[in-house]
């Protein structure tokens, strides 16, 4: 990790300390804007910090660690889309507003039924993050990327309560909504290019989130095992449990090595990032599953933190595409290599 990245990490840990799990969304959002994280990937020419994918991943990693409720992942995706949307009427204004805290929501699910006929949108966008705090949504349909007011004509926003209470997702239904000309971000190939790049960035972001959270899950579990006594000794002394923790540690650390290698490689393909995301999320899922088991009964209670990680882990598996789809694509690519 470079000095720049480790400084970012330290700042994030200071702003969001490990003992403040699931910090309130709105307060976090304010802090995130103050930290300047909303302008991280924006180029310096456009008034941003011009930081790379590895820097962004560093922050998402830390946000995963504390189970952040703030929609930083979608916010940065929207920002990156807008920066690529050269045809957008007031691009500079949008970038400035979004980088300084106006939230534009996006869908975290690549498979959607939305279609654009000319500028008219029909269909449903699933898994739109925190649509309740967004004035506008960024919609990617085949051949069209556009902004849509969340209270626009023919737009219905419905919250879908999740088991994971650290995130909020909405279904957004478009019943023939006509996009305003000044809100069109890109069309045709340019639009599909933006959609593809958002998919790629989303995959890295989720991998980072998952591995940050996996680290926190294991740390919490190991601490508990050292404290908890059964049969007159800390249960951390039982070799069967030690070996399971060591296996988790090994899986987390090696997946993390791949995360930093890929995040630092601008040439990494969407398929490679998908395989990384699938790996990272499976590592987190299994860590969270083992964490509950290793905690025993206390891990099954609402008041303990175990289940918060588990529920985020389960949700993370599906955002950005399922492991089955991502791994299948990776297998196909390896076959063609």
């Amino acid at each position, binding site marked *: 990790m470079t000095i720049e990245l480790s400084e970012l990490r330290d700042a994030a840990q200071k702003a969001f300390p490990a003992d403040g799990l699931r910090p309130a969304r709105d307060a976090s959002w304010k802090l995130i804007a103050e930290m300047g994280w909303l302008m991280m990937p924006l180029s310096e020419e456009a008034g941003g910090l011009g930081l790379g994918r590895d820097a962004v991943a560093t922050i998402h990693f830390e946000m995963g660690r504390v189970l952040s409720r703030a929609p930083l992942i979608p916010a940065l995706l929207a920002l990156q889309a807008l920066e690529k949307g050269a045809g957008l009427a007031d691009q500079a204004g949008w970038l400035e507003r979004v980088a300084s805290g106006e939230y534009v929501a996006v869908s975290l*699910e690549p498979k959607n039924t939305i279609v654009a006929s000319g500028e008219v949108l029909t269909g449903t966008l*699933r*898994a739109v993050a925190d649509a309740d705090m967004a004035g506008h949504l960024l919609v990617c349909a085949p051949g069209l990327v556009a902004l849509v007011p969340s209270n626009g004509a023919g737009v219905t926003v419905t919250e*879908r*309560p*999740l*088991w*994971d209470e650290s995130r909020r997702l909405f279904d957004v239904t478009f019943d023939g909504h006509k996009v305003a000309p000044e809100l069109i971000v890109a069309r045709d190939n340019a639009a599909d290019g933006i959609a593809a790049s958002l998919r790629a960035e989303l995959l890295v972001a989720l991998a980072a989130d998952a591995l940050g959270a996996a680290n926190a899950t294991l740390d919490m579990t190991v601490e508990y095992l050292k404290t908890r*006594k*059964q*049969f*007159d*000794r800390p249960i951390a*002394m*039982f070799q*069967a*449990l030690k070996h399971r923790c060591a296996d988790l540690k090994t899986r987390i650390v090696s997946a993390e090595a791949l995360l930093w290698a890929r995040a630092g490689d601008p040439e990494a393909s969407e398929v490679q990032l998908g395989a990384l995301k699938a790996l990272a999320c499976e590592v987190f899922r299994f860590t969270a599953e083992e964490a*509950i*088991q290793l905690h*025993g*009964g206390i*891990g*099954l*209670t*609402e*008041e303990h933190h*175990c*289940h918060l990680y*588990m*529920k985020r882990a*389960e*949700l993370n598996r*599906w*955002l950005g595409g*399922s492991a*089955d789809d991502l791994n299948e694509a990776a297998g196909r690519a390896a076959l063609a290599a």
Partner: protein
Amino acid sequence: MTDQTTLDALRTEVRIWLAANAPKGWRQAEQTHEQFAAAQRDWFLKLVEGGYAIPHWPAEWPGGGRSLAEQKIIYEELAKADTPRLLLSFVSTFHAASTLMECASEEQRARYLPGILKGETWCQGFSEPGAGSDLAALKCRAVRETRADGDVYVVSGQKIWSTMAQYADKCLLLVRTNSDGVKQAGITFLLMDMKAKGVTVRPIQQIQGDEEFCEIFLDDVEVSVADRVGEENKGWAVAQATLSSERGLTLMELSYRMRGALSYVAELIRRHGREADTEVLRQFGVLSARVDSACAIADQFLENRMNGIEGLGDASIVKLTYSRVLREYALLGLKIGGLDEQYRAPITFGDLNTGNWMADYMNSYAWTIAGGSDEVQRNIIAERMLDMPREPKNWVVA
């Protein structure tokens, strides 16, 4: 052993009775935990009336005196008819009953057993926050004091993981009456009234939204010496009798219920259009065989018990098999269900295989952790079945 004709006749009789009496639409009807508890009471009393609630009790009780083979048939049919599992009355009819029958005095039996058939429910006050797998480390303290109307134990401490204690009338309570010597030797077994002064029950909010377990706080609760089972400081042996009262029927029933619930997986595969996905098909095939093997090992365990042959560790094999297969069941559902399953959906109380896959997944921990965790079962299997050396007793930490 009961002959085949009698068994076949019983099966027919139970089926006919269930066709007329099994509750319908109960999953939808039970929206709150209180409704669930009320429905449990009703169903139990109906089973008492039908003569199928306590087949394992002695013959002098109505509906009792059934052989293990007969009990198995009754539970099989209850499972196949998809009736509600008997959760609220479980501690009463198994743990409390066998404690009373095997270890209690004549007076205690006369006083408590009839109430069970009228719907009086019991809970267990064994586990404590600091004593889970290591039950004998319990600290809940009882001091004997003299009162005008006879001696009492004054009990203070905390119990946890007490199933449905919020609805219980009575409690099987383990307390510490002596702190010297080996920890097992200072434990006393009491029968406590849950309405007694100083008893506070707090349901534990569980991660899937259920409230199956409770904490019980005891603050100078007085229990009459007449409600002590066995001698003072000799409660550990009584507790062993309590815990061994149910051997295999529940896991047989649950395995059969899981077999029936494979239909939820099939529905899910169809709903998601994965009928041609080789991986999904193979995993479903593997799961089916694993569920079948859980049924087979539960059946075999019961059959061996009927023949009077139960080996050391056999019960642990049955439990560990079931708990692992139950987890595999939920994991496959989650894998196929995808994002849809991450949206919160109403849970079914007291049911383990519901097709609400996140709830089923979370419920599966109740079997990998509670009632002797998978880790404890592995220790037992390694030490008692495979005869591998035990953990050293006297640890000198380096």
